[in-house]
C-alpha cells in the first residue's frame, strides 16, 4: 500500500487500525469538536487527540431526541453516534462554544444523555474568546492553563513545559508538511485531488501525529513521481464549515472542477498557521489559536476575507464554492459576504447548501455543472 493510500483510508471510518493499536497499548484518546482546541496539550499529556466526526452514521433518530429540528445534521448525527456508543474508544471529550449547535450537543453529553465508556469520563468545554486581540490572547492563555491542569488532575499525569514544547514542534511539523502538500497543489497539474487532500487532512487528526508525519513525508516523496491532474475545467477553492466526506468533493471533481485549495476546518484553517516554538508554550499556543486564520465564529471577518482573496490569487483559483450545512448561521452570513466580495472582484462564486449525509446529489450535480459552465475556462 502506498503512503497516499494509507493516508486516505482513515477518513472512511470512525476509527482505524492506528487508533486500535494505540488503544491496545492502553493509550488514551481525547475527542475534540473544533480546531480551536489545542491538540498540543492533549498530545503533551501523552494522549491521542482525535477530531470528532460522525463518519458511518446513517440516521440521526436517537440524536434527534435532544437536538432540535433546527440543529445542523452533523451535530444530530454525531450526537446519534454518541448515544449509540460509537465513540466508546474515547477517554474524554473537549468542546467549546464553536456554534450554537455544537454547544447544545455538548450539553447533552454533560447532562448524561450519552452512554459513556468510562466513569468519570473527562468532559470539558473551553471558554474560547470570540475576539482576536491581545486581551483575548491573554484570556486564552489562562484558559489553556486551566485546561492543562484539568487534564493533569483527571488523568493523574503531568504536562511539563518541555513536553508542550516537543508537542508544539511535532504538530508544527505536521502543519509544515501539510503546507508542502498544498504548495504542490498550486502547480498547473496538481498531483493530488481535492478529495484526496481532504482525506489526508482528516487522517492528520485521526492517528498519532508522529505516524501521520512519517506517512506524509513518505507520501510527498511518492508524489514526485505521480502525474498531475491537468484535465480539469476549472480550479476551485472550496470554503465552508464542517466537511468530512471526501465523496462530496469527488462529486465536484467528477464534473471537471479540481479543488486546488480550501477554506475549511478540515483544511487550511486547521494547519495554516504555526505555533512559535521558542516562546513560553502556553502563551505561544494561546496566540496561535486566537490569531490564526479564523472561522466565522470569530469576530474577524475582514481578515478572513483578505485571506480567501489571497488564496484565490496564490492557487490561481477560477471559482469559489462555499458548502454550508443547512441551519449553519455562521457560514450562512459569512458565505454570503464572501459571495458579495467575490462578485465585486469578478470571481465566480456559488453557495451550496447540504446535509450531513450526501443527498440531493442530482440537484448538486446540476448546480455544479452550471457553475462550471459560467466559469468557461
Amino acid at each position: 500500500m502506498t503512503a497516499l493510500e494509507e493516508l486516505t483510508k482513515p477518513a472512511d471510518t470512525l476509527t482505524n487500525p492506528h487508533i486500535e493499536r494505540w488503544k491496545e497499548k492502553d493509550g488514551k484518546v481525547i475527542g475534540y469538536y473544533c480546531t480551536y482546541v489545542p491538540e498540543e496539550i492533549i498530545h503533551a499529556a501523552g494522549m491521542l487527540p482525535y477530531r470528532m466526526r460522525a463518519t458511518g452514521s446513517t440516521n440521526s433518530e436517537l440524536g434527534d431526541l435532544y437536538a432540535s429540528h433546527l440543529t445542523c445534521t452533523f451535530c444530530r448525527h454525531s450526537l446519534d453516534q454518541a448515544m449509540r456508543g460509537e465513540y466508546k474508544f474515547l477517554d474524554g471529550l473537549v468542546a467549546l462554544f464553536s456554534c450554537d449547535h455544537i454547544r447544545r450537543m455538548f450539553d447533552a453529553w454533560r447532562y448524561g444523555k450519552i452512554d459513556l465508556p468510562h466513569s468519570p469520563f473527562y468532559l470539558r468545554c473551553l471558554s474560547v474568546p470570540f475576539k482576536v486581540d491581545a486581551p483575548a490572547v491573554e484570556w486564552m492563555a489562562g484558559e489553556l492553563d486551566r485546561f492543562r491542569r484539568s487534564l493533569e488532575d483527571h488523568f493523574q499525569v503531568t504536562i511539563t513545559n518541555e513536553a508542550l514544547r516537543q508537542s508544539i514542534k511535532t504538530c508544527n511539523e505536521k502543519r509544515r508538511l501539510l503546507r508542502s502538500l498544498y504548495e504542490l497543489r498550486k502547480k498547473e497539474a496538481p498531483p493530488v485531488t481535492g478529495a484526496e487532500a481532504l482525506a489526508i487532512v482528516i487522517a492528520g487528526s485521526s492517528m498519532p501525529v508522529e505516524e501521520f508525519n512519517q506517512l506524509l513525508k513518505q507520501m510527498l516523496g511518492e508524489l514526485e513521481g505521480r502525474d498531475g491532474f491537468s484535465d480539469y475545467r476549472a480550479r476551485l477553492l472550496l470554503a465552508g464549515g464542517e466537511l468530512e466526506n471526501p465523496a462530496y468533493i469527488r462529486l465536484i471533481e467528477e464534473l471537471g472542477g479540481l479543488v486546488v485549495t480550501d477554506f475549511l476546518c478540515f483544511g487550511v484553517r486547521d494547519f495554516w498557521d504555526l505555533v512559535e516554538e521558542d516562546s513560553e508554550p502556553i502563551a505561544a499556543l494561546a496566540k496561535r489559536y486566537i490569531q490564526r486564520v479564523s472561522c466565522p465564529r470569530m469576530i474577524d471577518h475582514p481578515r478572513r476575507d483578505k485571506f480567501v482573496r489571497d488564496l484565490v490569487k496564490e492557487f490561481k483559483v477560477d471559482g469559489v464554492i462555499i458548502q454550508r450545512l443547512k441551519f449553519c448561521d455562521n457560514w450562512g452570513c459569512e458565505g454570503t459576504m464572501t459571495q458579495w466580495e467575490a462578485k465585486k472582484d469578478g470571481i465566480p462564486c456559488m453557495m451550496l447548501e447540504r446535509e450531513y449525509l450526501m443527498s440531493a446529489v442530482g440537484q448538486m450535480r446540476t448546480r455544479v455543472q452550471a457553475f462550471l459552465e459560467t466559469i468557461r475556462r
Partner: protein
Amino acid sequence: MTEKAEKYKLHRGLYDLLKGITQPGMMKMMADWLGAVFSAVDEGKPILFNQFTVFSELMVALDIVPLPPELWQSSQLNVDANACCESIDAAEEAGIHPELCSANKAIIGDIMLDKIPPPSMVVLPTFPCDNSKITYQAVAHLTGAPTYFLDCPYWMDEGEAMDYWVNQYKGLISFLEKHSEKKLDYDRLKEVAEESNRCLDYWLEGLELLKLKPLPLNGPFASGYLAGLTALGTPAATEAVKASLDELRSRVDKGETAVPEEKTRVIWFYYPVFWDAGLGDWMAQMGAVTASGLVGYFNVEPIDTSTPESTIRGLARRALDTPMGRQGRGASDLWIDDCLRAVEEWKGDCVILAGHPGCKWLMGCYGLFRDIARERGIPVLLWDVDLFDPRPCSGEESRARIEPFLNTIMAR
C-alpha cells in the same frame, strides 16, 4: 411629505400616533425614543445600534441616541403585522440563508433598503447566539460603522472571567468616547447608574406583584425592558416604569384580577409573537394568564455607585443579566434553571414556547428541558412560529396549537 419624512414612514407614523401621549408609561416611552431617533436623523446626530441585550446607561451618560435594531423591527409590527416581510425577502434575495433569525434578516434587509437610520456605531455582546454575532459582522460590512463586541466568557465566575468581562466593558467606554468624540463624566455616570437602580427597583417590584395568585394583570412586566433598551438611567424611564408599577399596585389594592376566573397560569419563557399582539388576550379569554415571560424577567443586584470602578463593575455585571442575554450566554443550564425558577416562583401551571425558527440556541435546550419538565410534571407546548414574520405560521394556526393544549391543562 418631505424626503426625510418619507423615509422610515411606518415608524414616523407610529411616532405621530404616540407623540401626543403625556401620561407616563410604555406608550410615552416608545414615543420619546422614536422622537429622539428622528431628531437625531433630522439633525444629523450620531445613532448607536445597541443589540437587544445591551442596555442604555452608557449611552444616556454620553448623550448618544440608542437604536436597538430588533426593537425597530418589533415596534413596527404593532402597526403592520407584515412590516418586516419586505426586508426579510430583500435579505434572502441578496443571498442570506432563510434559516437566519428573521429579526436579523430584517435588519440586513432594512439596511439594504434604507429602511433603518444608518448607525454611527454598533455595540453588542458575543451572546446570545450565532445569528447575532454573524449578522452584526454583516452590518459592519454593509454600513462600515465601527463595531464593538463585548466578548463574554462561556463560564462566568467572580474571578478571572468577571475581570475579563469588566475589561470588555471598559473597552466599550473607550470605544464610545472615541467614536462619539465625547468624554465620559463619571459624576454623570454615577447619576445615571443611581437612576437606573431606582428604575430597577420598580421593575423588580412589578415582577414580584406578578407572583400573586390570581394574577393582577395579564402579561409579563415588559416596561422595564423597553426602558432598558431605550432610556434606562433617565428620570423619564424611571417614571415610565413606576407608572406601570403604580397601575399594578392599584389593581392589587382594589383586588382587581387579570381575568374573572384564573384557570391556568402560563410561563411564556421566550419572546412574544411580536406581530400577534392579541394572542395573550385571546388566551386570557380562555382563563389562561401569562404570569412570567422572558421579556420581563430580570434578576439583578443594585449597582454600587460608591466609586467609578464599582459603578462600571456593577453596570458590566448587570449587562450579563439582561433578558435573553442572561439565558443565552452559556450552557443550557442558564435558560433551563431560569425557566424552572419562573415556573416555581410565578406559580406556573405550564410552559409555552414559541419556537422561533432562527433560535437554534434555545431550541437546542428544549430536549433537555422536556425531560426535566416531564419529571416534574410541567406540561410544555412548543410549536414553530416566526416572531417577526406571520407567513410561516398564521395567528389562526398558532391558536389551533395552543387551544387544545390549554384545554387539556384546564380540564385536569
